[in-house]
């Protein structure tokens, strides 16, 4: 068969049709897998999520009881991480967008942030273990875990804040400056409030990442099962994700594992949907 004849067998229009079908099918398969994971976990776990489960202490190494100490521990570690990463991230974003031109320094800062974003969480775990747990002597604690998470989510906060600040129209700054505000005043009183939803998105995404993190906190906050709610920054804690990992890997209790996974997945979904909802409304405003 000649090349020309073969070419005519499949016209460009037909090959376009084939490509479309295949690509859309692959897209559908990808979405189906992701949706399947969520539905599978939630369907089997939701029946075991009760008020007692959410507010009770665990017993029999997690076979019975609830997950309240883990929820509190997760929230504490996350809050600490976000509280530290937000000022650092927003400050970096302000510097990058408002105070400097693109040059060597911005290149170094961007490269640093990008590399940090690519560092695997297990490396953060190793580092946090040596630096916070051993060298600074915090022990396996909420403090060590929160600091490690702060380092980990910093790049996310920087990136989203930078985008948010960039999307505030220059005219806003010009008006503030023309009214006699200093540069810093115009940033604090005009630019930051306008960019707030975007910054918030970054922070919320950071919360999501902190909650779902396992490898970085297991070596810094510890994994021992505690029946009491942690009360000090120096208390160790087992976060929800670490608890789930232990339940699943050691096959302690399938019901409790599904229930814990359901809590985790639903929390993450709510958090991420909120983040994207805020972001899309924010982006519409300045389009």
């Amino acid at each position, binding site marked *: 068969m000649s090349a020309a004849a073969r070419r005519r067998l499949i016209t460009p229009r037909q090959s376009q049709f084939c490509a479309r079908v*295949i690509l859309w099918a692959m897209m559908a398969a990808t979405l189906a897998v992701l949706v399947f994971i969520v539905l599978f976990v939630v369907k089997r776990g939701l029946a075991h999520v009760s008020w007692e489960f959410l507010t009770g202490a665990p017993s029999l190494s997690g076979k019975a009881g609830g997950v309240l100490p883990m929820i509190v521990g997760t929230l504490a570690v996350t809050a600490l991480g976000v509280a530290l990463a937000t*000022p650092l991230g927003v400050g970096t974003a302000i510097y990058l967008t408002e105070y400097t031109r693109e040059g060597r320094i911005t290149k170094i800062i961007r490269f640093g942030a990008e590399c940090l974003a690519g560092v695997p969480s297990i490396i953060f775990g190793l580092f946090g273990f040596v630096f916070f747990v051993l060298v600074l002597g915090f022990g396996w604690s909420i403090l060590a875990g929160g600091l490690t998470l702060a380092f980990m989510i910093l790049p996310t906060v920087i990136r989203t804040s930078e985008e948010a600040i960039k999307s505030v129209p220059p005219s806003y700054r010009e008006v503030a400056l023309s009214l006699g505000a200093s540069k810093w005043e115009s940033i604090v009183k005009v630019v930051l409030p306008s960019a707030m939803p975007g910054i918030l998105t970054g922070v919320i995404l950071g919360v999501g990442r902190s909650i779902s993190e396992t490898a970085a906190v297991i070596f810094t906050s510890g994994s021992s099962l505690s029946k009491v709610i942690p009360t000090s920054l120096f208390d160790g804690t087992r976060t929800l994700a670490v608890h789930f990992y232990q339940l699943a890997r050691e096959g302690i209790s399938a019901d409790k594992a599904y229930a814990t996974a359901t809590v*985790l997945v639903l929390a993450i979904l709510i958090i991420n949907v909120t983040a994207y909802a805020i972001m899309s409304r924010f982006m519409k405003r300045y389009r």
Partner: protein
Amino acid sequence: MRFRLPEKVVERSLLLVAMSSVAILLLITVFIFREGGPLLVQVGLGNFFSGAWDPQHDQYGIALMVVGSFAVTSGALLIGVPFGIACAIVLAEMAPPRARSILKPAIEVLAGIPSVVYGFMGIVVLLPMIRTHIGGPGASALAGSIILGIMVLPTVIGISVDALQAVPRSYREASLALGATQWQTIRRVVLPAARSGIVAAVILGMGRAVGETMAVIMVAGNSVQMPHSPLDSVRTLTANIALEMGYAAGDHRAALFATGIVLFVIIMILNTLANLARGRLKKRSVVVVTLAATAADLVKPRAKPEEQ
């Protein structure tokens, strides 16, 4: 007169804050190397990369873990890259705006599923499936590849979509105006123009796969052995660290940090490569040449002399 913060002070303090991510990166480097470096020197780089892993007899070599990581990562890319790029093309080029505004957030939101949950899904769904339909113990390089292949999707999709959207509209219009179909435009104009961004997406997806820990531990089996088939159990570099860190001490712990150094260096190399690939995207006039060549090709595809 109100007190005003002097601008110089503001600028200097912000610069200090902005250097924090660089400082953190340096801090991580210093401490990982401080813990693992001496052992690397003591064992010797050659031995560390080629020797056997037997901490009880003070033998620290990560060859089998390097093989494990390589096997699982390449498997993950084989699965994740085609699907990731397909999704990116659909999202950036084919989906109508309304469908896109639902599909893109859906994928990004679902990307937030914790890695332990992926690992758990591997245990309860994937491993039994492999056991009954393909054979073997279930926990294997294949299982690790599939789970990681799903987990790299958001990275590959996100960066590829950005790369595709960065291709100027006029390129597509020019191609369509020459009578090319949309698929010809995508395949011969848009994809070549976005190539370096897509390469960056693949590299960063690779970094994600190499660095993933918890999910891999749960499905890959973790035996320190040479895999002879995809159904054999493997242990990755990350799994090695996470599994033994809990009880390791002395040289053993230093060896785990040395494993961390290797992982860290791999990730840094991948990040730099991705950066280089993406940096090229901006100043490449080659794009224009590609476009011109493709356009010329499109105008007279049927007039080509037959070669066979």
